[in-house]
């Protein structure tokens, strides 16, 4: 359905019509009514032309696109004019901003263009929210129509490099970045040889030492360990820099932990179930979760530690530090959990906070923890 509204310029013209009409009433000459007629004709024409333009324009967009914050679309969008007359001053809008502007599309033709829109904000932008509008030809009325296109554009938060938070409950894990004291028969870091025992894989035979020792010798490797990290993000109740910074920080920490080979659980305050991610696994789900976080005015779920593994080190990424947050920290600390708190730079943290406190900004996490306040 096409909706037509007056633009600011159109409202100004209506006002001018009223002013001139009042002036015409006090003037002997009625010719001012001709001038009013000119304005009214422009308004009338604009109403019908922009309506017609929008009615016959169709859009074809890529079905699904994944981007990072600050990136532009790479694939062209096709805009068809199925009407006979040219369609002018066409704009495509999405909640992310103005996708593209087309001065003119001749009748029965199409234009394919890569949108110049830079997606500066993270989010999931449904193509069905894309609207076509036109202010042709005079900019006095704007006709708008929803496209109902399938598909979406997913904009991930722009993550940055950060050190992985310290993990807890180290377990043997192939590919783990931490080294254990034991020697095992598989791994990345060669640590020596021993005599072959039943059950050792034959491919691990170290032929050089076998030849020297005249008995079957197998390679040994340093034990690879990885830990568990649970990241809890309390979502700010309003959109803004605080929310975005916290999401970036949480995402960056999660990816850093995964890169270090740790097992990560991720939970935000708007979700019920945490996302479990094995190290080196596909991270699309996490990125999608991060992209889709929207602020919620609902109460924070109580005790995130109940939803997250108790063995994992708990990283609380908070947009600020409130009383509820301090209680949450104390509760977690009481269960002897390793608790790390991440708050924005500039937030005051009480000295007796029973956790290691880190500060994050728009594009970094300060790795040096606060001096005071350590987990018990």
């Amino acid at each position, binding site marked *: 359905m096409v909706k037509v509204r007056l633009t600011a*310029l159109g409202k100004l013209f209506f006002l*001018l019509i009223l002013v*001139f*009409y009042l*002036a*015409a*009433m*006090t*003037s*002997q*000459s*009625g*010719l*001012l*009514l*001709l*001038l*009013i*007629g*000119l304005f*009214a*004709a*422009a308004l*009338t*024409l604009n109403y019908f*032309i922009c309506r017609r333009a929008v009615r016959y324009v169709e859009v074809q967009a890529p079905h699904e696109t994944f981007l990072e914050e600050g990136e532009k679309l790479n694939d062209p969008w096709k805009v068809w004019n199925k009407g006979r007359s*040219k369609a*002018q*001053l066409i704009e495509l809008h999405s909640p992310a901003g103005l996708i593209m*502007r*087309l*001065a*003119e599309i*001749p009748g029965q*033709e199409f234009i394919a263009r890569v949108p110049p829109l830079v997606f500066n904000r993270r989010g999931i932008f449904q193509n069905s929210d894309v609207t076509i509008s036109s*202010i*042709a*030809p*005079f*900019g*006095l009325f704007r006709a708008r129509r929803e496209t109902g296109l399938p598909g979406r554009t997913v904009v991930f938060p722009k993550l940055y490099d950060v050190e992985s938070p310290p993990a807890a409950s180290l377990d043997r894990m192939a590919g783990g970045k931490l080294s254990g004291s034991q020697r095992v028969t598989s791994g990345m870091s060669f640590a020596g040889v021993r005599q072959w025992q039943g059950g050792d894989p034959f491919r691990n035979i170290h032929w050089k030492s076998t030849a020297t020792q005249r008995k079957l010798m197998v390679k040994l490797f340093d034990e690879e360990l990885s830990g568990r990290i649970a990241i809890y993000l309390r979502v700010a109740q309003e959109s803004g820099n605080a929310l975005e910074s916290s999401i970036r920080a949480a995402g960056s920490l999660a990816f850093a932990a995964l890169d270090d080979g740790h097992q990560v659980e991720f939970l935000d305050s708007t979700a019920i179930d945490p996302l479990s991610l094995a190290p080196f696994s596909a991270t699309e789900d996490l990125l999608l979760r991060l992209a889709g976080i929207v602020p919620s005015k609902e109460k924070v779920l109580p005790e995130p530690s109940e939803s997250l593994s108790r063995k994992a080190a708990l990283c609380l990424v908070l947009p600020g530090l409130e009383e509820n947050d301090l209680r949450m920290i104390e509760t977690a600390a009481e269960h002897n959990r390793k608790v790390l708190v991440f708050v924005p730079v500039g937030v005051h943290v009480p000295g007796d906070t029973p956790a290691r406190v880190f500060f994050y900004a728009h594009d970094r996490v300060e790795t040096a923890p606060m001096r005071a306040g350590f987990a018990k």
Partner: protein
Amino acid sequence: MKNPRHQFVLLGFLAQGLVWDSWIALLAYTLLWIVCLKFLRGRVTVTLRTEALVLLFGCIFSYLVGKLFSRTTHFFLGEGLIFLQAVRLVRPLNRKEKLTSLLIACFHFGVVCTLAPNIRFVLLFLGAAALFPKALQTLQLEEFDDESAFHSALRWPEYVAVLGISVALFFTLPRFFTGAPIFAGAGEPSLLHTVLDPSQGGSQNSDRVLLQIEGEKIGYLRCYSLTEFDGVRWNIEKNAPLRKLRIPTADEYPHLLKRSVRVKNGAALGSVLPTDGNVRWLQGNFFTRPMENTSTIIEVGVMWNTANNTYDYFVDTNAFVERLSPAASQKLTSHPAQSERLKAWLRKAEGEESDPIKKARAVERLLRNSYSYKLGTPELNRLNPVEDFIFNRTEGHCERFAAAMGLFLRMEGVPSRVVIGYVATTHNPFTGWRQVRFKDAHAWTEGYFDELGWVQFDATPGPPAGGTGTGWREMLEALDFAWYSHVVNFDGFAQKQFFASLPGTLTSFVDSLKAHQRKVMWVVGVLVAGLIALRAPGFKKQRVGLGRKTPGVIVAHHYGKMLQLLAHHGYYREPSETPREFLQSLQNENFPHLAQARFVTDSFCRTAYGGKQPASNEIHQVEDTLHQLKQALRQKRN
């Protein structure tokens, strides 16, 4: 200069020039526009502060010029805005400034609608109807894409719609009368002052038409009667009694002559209505309580400035001679004693005549023949102006002749009065009415004779009034007056009448169509046939030119034509074949004109699949190649 916004700004300049009612102003503004755009643009740095100063300077300059040339100073703001617009032509503007510039031009246009609504306004309006929408459209397009800003145009139906809606609203928007009463002399130099002292603005208004009058044997139109003479000046009698006009009886009607008057500029009338002869009845639509004073001048109670000022009156050709009372007679003959010299001159002028009226005619003839008419002569002696005029100056404007004649009549004991009014000079053959212009203001004398009543004497030298103009000027004036009557002055009453008469007009139109049914059918048939021919596919294709379709579409069109041509000669392209595959199949069949086919196909593929727009010379080459192919295939068949 081709930018529609710049052109619309020029219209605003011209509108302001029209307010001055001077060709020099129009030329000067046009020149200013050209200089700013052609020579100064991009070469002069202009800041906002400069613009503010220029605006202020323009307002002050206009005010001073108005004072210097005794013109109205009310337009100083409009003039200041002209200066601002001119300065803004010199530099690139942002969107808001462009919009402001357009609105200022609209303001100038609005001013000319109210202050100078003459026929030249039609040209301005047509220009505005063409340029204003285009300027608005360009403003929007410039925000989208600079290159297409000047390529895209409105279509002719849209221009027609703009005009149509403007005119329709002009006729249908309700009008309300809010005219204010006119006070005598308000805004215009009064007739009295104009005639008594032509330097007081009369010459400035000389050519403007004041009113039009229609009727038989129209005499001098009387507005003021000066009856009191103190030896120096003639003055109007104050508080002269007024009497109602008597409604004529039925048997008096055959002797009545009707006059109809259309007044263009009511403010110049003061509180009197110009009439000639013995007025018996009068009615009009822009005044109340018309009454006659003792000098048979028609005065009204309240006059207001409204549209379509008209009045009708009837003069009695069989008027009885009004008797003057002894008191009135004494009043109208009183004059200070004159010198012997003047008396001697008068006796000499009268010659041997004994009859009073013949004596008066002799004096009149002498003044007409021996003295000169001239405007702008120096002031006469304050103590003895008549003697100074007769013996020393011997030239002057009409008031001097009339004043002298009036005195001479009184010296002979004839009651006299000086009358000021208008003389309807030219007859406009296009309207059938007589034009009365401001410069037709005149003064003459009337003397009272027993048995004859008041007799008119015009002692001013010059050609007699009358004549018929047949040139462009008369035609333009006729158009101008019609424009005023039917368009400018289209008020609430006229609107009501228009809609009341509309059903009748439509009915009579339908009846006349029915009466000329055969002719109408012919005309309709021709129109329909023409429309069908215009929209026929073959004809439509002929009409397509390079400018109407994009180059890509034209190339595709030519490729389609080539396929049709080849199919006609037995070379069919399968639906599943791509253009290249079809070309290959032609090669396999040893098609003799493969080079031409390849050229057209390559051009098509480059455009359709490669996204490259062909240049215009390439399109011509494709057309030529296609033509060659057609000729070759035809020859082969023959």
